[in-house]
């Protein structure tokens, strides 16, 4: 019996575990076949602890599993979960009989003990409890089989599962009836095909046609209908073909052998066919399972943020399980953040806040199909991260029963795990990003402090020096020297003040997004204010402007715009000799206002003018010109805040040229034209 090919998704995990288990003893607990699995599980746990063994709860699903009622299946899934919560590995195996499958698995895991219930049925062909145990022992040489009796008075309460509704019972009954009718129809068809051949071919070939029919019935119908086909085949063969024809009498006793052989062959074929079909279905289900997992994993890998991840997962789970699904996000303290609910499909599950809170707090599943809040219509699965519950997946089956089969439970859990992993990844990425930002901010702060302390100390030493000279009584200073020193003090103090303004402004601009105080302003007004700010210092320079009065009003923060222009003028004063011409002009180009400040000075003096806009970057490093290199950084911040851009190039006038492009909205309509109001 090839068991390895029949493992569930757990096979991989089991194989991994088997490697690690070489050193440690392994103990298997067979569940699902006795009525007191809980007792078995607890016995297994105690025994495993006593002998320091790893242990696994094994559920073997034979072909009979198809006929297991849904509530029984749900109970077995729950048993596996309980075992898992007690430290066992939960394994689901598929096989022909329980005994052969568990024996093969025990060999694979090199298990030393198998715990079974003393009332366990090990396979449908086995005739007695004792015979089964013997069979299992024979199949598992060297493995200790321990039969556990139910604990007296142990009232095992399986997780309640909603019963089928009457309409579903009727539907199930109808399907069974259809299958049995089909079984009879197969015989009829065989007869219709075979009857015209009667007399032309040997009876042995007629038998073949019926055998073929039995095979088809085995492939398409269940075990019962197949058996029915086997019987009706014999009856039809007897009635229509075996002399005397049209009578059930049999004259030749040889035909009794034929009948027996036909029955046995038909039953065997049917059984084989059913087994083949089940394996095909199981393989199909596994493939579906794998494909679904692959799809969700792939889409989660693409998803960039938490919202996209949750949306992806909810969509996949909803589609695969035909379920209404939503995700509740939890904050770091495990409280549910209602605002982050993501819903897919037309309807969302009804969320019971109490259940959700319980799941968030305990980190365990609850709701339908579990022991906690089993009456809830939906299942709640915690999405576990490394630091507690990240969120809760709420799934409500779209069909009326709401029951989830074990394969679907597994699939759902696997998908939930994938989502949790993805969310955890997103959270870690967020943390890493925050850490990186913090590091960058720290570097910036250090650079800023270093630059500022240098640029504040330099003018301060000049001020202190000049002040001490003026204060010295015996330095009989003439009026000219006194005025020079006074002006020096004033200029240096003003430099410091400008520096402080720039630093504060930059900090404010970078602190948030909501810093613009927009209003409608005319550009000529802004240019005028910027020039007025430097009126006295610009006296030595030749300033000209070309700002047309008919430019549209701009919705800008005038303070910041003035500051930007003022910084550019400041640079012109600092980096060009007196007498240089400074020209400020503005033009309108489709939707954009271009403001240009250029001069006839020595130019930018750098190869990559873009760098000038970086913080703490200065055109001439080794110079006696004061400043920290914040002016242009502010210019760029201001222009970007207004949705524009600033560029530095060489001016056709010979010097530096700064061009600011600011988009402008529709020209605000002036409600009264100058002539319309009396």
């Amino acid at each position, binding site marked *: 019996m090839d068991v390895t090919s029949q493992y569930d998704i757990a096979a991989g995990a089991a194989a991994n575990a088997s490697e690690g288990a070489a050193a440690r003893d392994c103990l298997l607990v067979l569940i699902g076949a006795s009525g007191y699995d809980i007792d078995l599980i607890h016995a297994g746990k105690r025994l495993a602890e006593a002998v320091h063994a790893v242990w696994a709860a094994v559920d073997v699903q034979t072909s009979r599993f198809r006929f297991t009622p849904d509530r029984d299946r749900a109970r077995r899934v729950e048993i596996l979960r309980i075992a898992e919560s007690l430290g066992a590995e939960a394994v689901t195996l598929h096989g022909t009989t329980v005994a052969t499958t568990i024996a093969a698995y025990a060999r694979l895991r090199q298990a030393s003990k198998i715990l079974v219930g003393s009332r366990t049925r090990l396979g449908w062909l086995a005739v007695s409890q004792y015979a089964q145990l013997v069979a299992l022992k024979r199949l598992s040489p060297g493995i200790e089989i321990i039969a556990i009796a139910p604990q007296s008075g142990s009232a095992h309460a399986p997780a309640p599962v909603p019963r089928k509704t009457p309409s579903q019972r009727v539907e199930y009954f109808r399907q069974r009836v259809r299958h049995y009718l089909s079984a009879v129809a197969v015989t009829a068809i065989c007869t219709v095909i075979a009857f015209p051949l009667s007399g032309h071919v040997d009876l042995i070939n007629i038998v073949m046609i019926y055998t073929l029919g039995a095979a088809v019935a085995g492939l398409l119908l269940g075990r019962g209908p197949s058996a029915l086909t086997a019987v009706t085949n014999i009856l039809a063969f007897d009635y229509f073909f075996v002399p005397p024809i049209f009578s059930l009498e049999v004259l030749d006793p040889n035909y009794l052998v034929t009948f027996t052989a036909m029955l046995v062959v038909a039953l065997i074929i049917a059984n084989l066919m059913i087994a083949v079909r089940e394996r095909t279905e199981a393989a199909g289900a596994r493939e579906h399972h794998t494909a679904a997992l692959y799809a969700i994993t792939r889409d989660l890998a693409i998803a960039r943020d938490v919202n996209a991840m949750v949306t992806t997962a909810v969509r996949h789970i909803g589609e695969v399980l035909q379920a209404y699904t939503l995700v509740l996000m939890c904050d770091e303290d495990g409280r549910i953040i209602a605002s982050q609910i993501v819903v897919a499909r037309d309807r969302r599950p009804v969320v019971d806040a109490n259940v959700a809170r319980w799941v968030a707090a305990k980190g365990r599943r609850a709701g339908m199909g579990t022991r906690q809040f089993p009456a809830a219509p939906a299942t709640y699965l915690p999405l576990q991260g490394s630091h507690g519950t990240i969120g809760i997946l709420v799934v409500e089956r779209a069909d009326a029963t709401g029951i989830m089969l074990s394969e679907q439970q597994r699939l759902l859990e696997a998908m939930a795990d994938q989502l949790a992993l993805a969310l955890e990844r997103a959270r870690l990425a967020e943390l890493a990003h925050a850490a990186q930002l913090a590091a960058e901010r720290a570097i910036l702060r250090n650079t800023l402090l270093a630059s500022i302390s240098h640029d504040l100390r330099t003018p301060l030493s000049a001020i202190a020096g000049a002040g001490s000279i003026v204060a010295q009584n015996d330095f009989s200073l003439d009026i000219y020297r006194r005025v020079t020193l006074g002006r020096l003090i004033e200029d240096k103090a003003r430099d410091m003040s400008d520096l402080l303004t720039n630093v504060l402004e930059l900090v404010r601009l970078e602190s948030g997004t909501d810093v613009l*105080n927009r209003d*409608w302003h005319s550009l000529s007004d802004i240019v005028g204010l910027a*020039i007025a700010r430097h009126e006295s210092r610009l006296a030595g320079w030749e300033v000209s402007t070309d700002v047309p009065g008919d430019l549209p009003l701009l919705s800008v923060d005038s303070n910041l715009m003035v500051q930007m222009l003022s910084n550019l003028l400041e640079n012109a004063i600092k980096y060009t000799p007196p007498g240089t011409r400074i020209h400020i002009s503005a033009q309108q180009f489709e939707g954009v206002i271009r403001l240009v400040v250029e001069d006839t000075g020595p130019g930018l003096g750098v190869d990559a003018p873009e760098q000038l806009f970086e913080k703490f970057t200065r055109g001439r490093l080794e110079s006696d010109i004061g400043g920290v290199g914040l002016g242009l950084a502010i210019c760029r911040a201001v222009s970007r805040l207004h949705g524009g851009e600033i560029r530095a190039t060489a001016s056709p006038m010979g010097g530096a040229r700064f061009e600011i492009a600011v988009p402008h909205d529709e020209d605000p309509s002036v409600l009264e034209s100058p002539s319309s109001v009396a």
Partner: protein
Amino acid sequence: MIVGMHVALVVEDDRAVQKVLRMMFEANGFRVVIADSCARGERDARSQRPDVSIVDLGLPDFDGIELIRSIRTWSPMPIIVLSARTAEAQRLAAFEAGADDYVLKPFSAPELLARARAALRRHVRGEEPSGILEFSDLSIDLSRRVVQQRGGGEVRLTPLEHRILETLARHRDRVVTHSQLMKEVWGPNRADTRSLRVFITTLRKKLERNPTRPTHIVTEPGVGYRLVVDSQRDDVGIDMHSSD
């Protein structure tokens, strides 16, 4: 211009600034009274009858704006704010409380002195505009609504432009806030400053030599406009350098 023995009240809590202001005013023929809180400022304003007040906003007991409001309830004397607060909203609040002018710290002494003297002159001359305003090469006859260039040519103003100019002239040399200007020109219930900005631009084009660098219709950023008729600044004491 000879000012005589004017009294300047300085409400400022920083010792160094007090000293600088005292020196500046005394060197230019003022008598100086110094108060370091709103309460003392209020008391000294009533007892010493100053001709001009310099008020800092960040005072230990109350905000300087409170003091301005309180003084305005009983005295029209010129009040100049001297503050490090740069935000437009705070400047606007000071002007709306009744301040005549706003000088930013760090300040230039000659400029502050010039502004104090200009405020004094306005106060002495009174608020009522004479019928005819003359500045640079323009003469504006407010009652006849005629603006003439010195050469003899007439500058044509639309009725709204004229109303704006008239409002600014009535408060000449003082800041007229946007809302005040809107209310007086368009009436109440106007909140949009866009048309005001357009009219100011057209007015400047007609009245200023260089509309981009206006010398008469001056913008007080974030607050409003000021019509500067008397732009002399050369009457600063000889031992201070003037801003040239």
